[in-house]
């Protein structure tokens, strides 16, 4: 029972982590919150849905299309909601990104309708029994996809030239610019990568719960913020760990405590973390940009 809950929690947490990595990359580079990130995730889920129902039943194709579409969407959001505000008050992008989020929600509601849409189950559902554990092929696919993407992000950041530029910009944008890093390109790249991860997470959540709706991004977006905070703002490995921690905590809370209060536990944890350990679980770096 406990092991089963842990498996479920890790699966949920891996998806949270994908969203939180996007938040934390953008915060790391810009020092600003991107509050439309949950809506980018939602659009990813819908693009996946459209590909699966209209074009082909290939899940990999749906993932790729969703990631590409949300990546481009991220670039548009950066252009409209962030770039005009460079050097403005650090809270100003909250207003513009909230506005972008509402615009995306209402667009999706207008185009797809406000009700839940069924997500086709395209992966052959197989249940594997491993002792007391029961794992479905869908769960395995979600977990594998999330882990592969996280690994790819890690390699990108640690091994590639562009990844090094992203890290340098996160560390100190002015100095990075002086040393020849194209900061604008780095910001755009960061938005692209962060948004593709959210888009992939959207498809994975659609597969996991078999339904999507235009307001799916609100709660996910808030959860992603919680996870980013758990891991420490701007801390990518922390976001990965924080996602798993929150996923497991939630699943355990639902299983052993009152299920309807599960969100309250998560946010109560946020309050405690903020007061006691604002640098996050791993505590590598404290962002001071207020």
């Amino acid at each position, binding site marked *: 029972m406990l092991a089963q809950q842990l498996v479920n929690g890790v699966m949920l947490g891996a998806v949270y982590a994908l969203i939180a990595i996007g938040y934390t990359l953008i915060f790391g580079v810009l020092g600003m919150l991107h509050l439309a990130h949950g809506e980018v995730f939602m659009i990813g889920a819908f693009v996946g849905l459209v590909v699966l129902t209209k074009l082909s039943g290939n899940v990999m194709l749906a993932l790729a299309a969703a990631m590409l579409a949300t990546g481009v969407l991220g670039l548009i959001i950066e252009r409209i909601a962030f770039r005009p505000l460079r050097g403005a*008050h650090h809270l100003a992008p909250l207003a*513009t990104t909230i506005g972008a989020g509402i615009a995306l929600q209402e667009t999706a509601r207008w185009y797809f309708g406000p009700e839940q849409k069924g997500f086709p189950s395209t992966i052959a559902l197989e249940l594997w029994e491993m002792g007391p554990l029961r794992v479905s092929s869908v769960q395995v696919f979600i977990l594998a996809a999330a882990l592969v993407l996280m690994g790819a992000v890690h390699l990108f950041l640690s091994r590639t030239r562009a990844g090094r530029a992203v890290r340098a910009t996160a560390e100190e944008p002015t100095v990075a610019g002086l040393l020849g890093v194209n900061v604008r390109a780095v910001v755009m790249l960061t938005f692209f990568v962060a948004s593709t991860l959210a888009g992939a997470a959207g498809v994975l959540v659609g597969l996991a719960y078999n339904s999507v709706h235009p307001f799916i991004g609100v709660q996910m977006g*808030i959860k992603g913020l919680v996870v980013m905070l758990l891991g420490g703002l701007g801390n990518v490995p922390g976001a990965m760990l924080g996602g798993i921690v929150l996923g497991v905590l939630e699943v355990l809370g639902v299983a052993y405590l009152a299920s309807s209060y599960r969100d309250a536990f998560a946010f109560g944890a946020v309050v405690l973390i903020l007061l006691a350990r604002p640098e996050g679980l791993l505590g590598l770096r404290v962002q001071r940009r207020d």
Partner: protein
Amino acid sequence: VIGPYLEDVLVQLGINVILALSLYFPLSAGQLSLGQGGFMAIGAYLASWLTATLGWPWPLAFAAAAAAAGLVGALVGLPALRVRGIYLVLLTMAFGEIVRVFFLNFGPTGAAQGFRGMPFVTTLPLVAVLAVAVAILAARTAASRMGARVRRHQPRRAGRRDHGHRRDAGQAGLVHRRGGGGRAGRRAVGALRAIHRAEEFGFARSVMPFTVRGGGRAADLLGIAGGGRRVDLTAGVAPVPEGVAARAVWSGDARP
């Protein structure tokens, strides 16, 4: 004179103006609250419970609910003395969500079904008078010495030192969070007539004032964003009483 539909729209508009003004107080200290929906829920549920269940006269319930929301605002303000900037945004957001989940599960006020049975008192004249009163209060606070002291604690841009004393910032923050909470509470009582569902006071509520108060360049995008039922009605009109506060936040005072 005006039809019931238009009156309903105008009442919503007035309520949104009060909610938007409630944000002015933390913002004047350079801090942002995403938890105003939570304060609003506290005021709405408490006032409704006092009138519908205990049979209090509504003005008394109104005052008590506003005071209670203000008190909770002060309590939330206490940890806010230690937490600033992005961290405070996240803290208030978490607070709003906790309140929402609480009322979603709290049996005595109807949990997920919502709470009903309160008298219909939220009429257009009442809302209009309150909105104007709150606007005047905000303007007077802004012009007062306390308002000036609070503004001094807005974070400076990089390269500038923060001149404020920590203790001062604390007091000011406390006073102003309390003020913000109280305003939100009042606004909340404005919703007295309908049934309340916890979902009404979620993140979207806390976020709505931004669409109302977006000044400067933010306004371009927010204009597009006004696809929502309430938002499009308020976005056009509310900036008039809101103009002063919005400009102070996004352009003038925030960049000394």
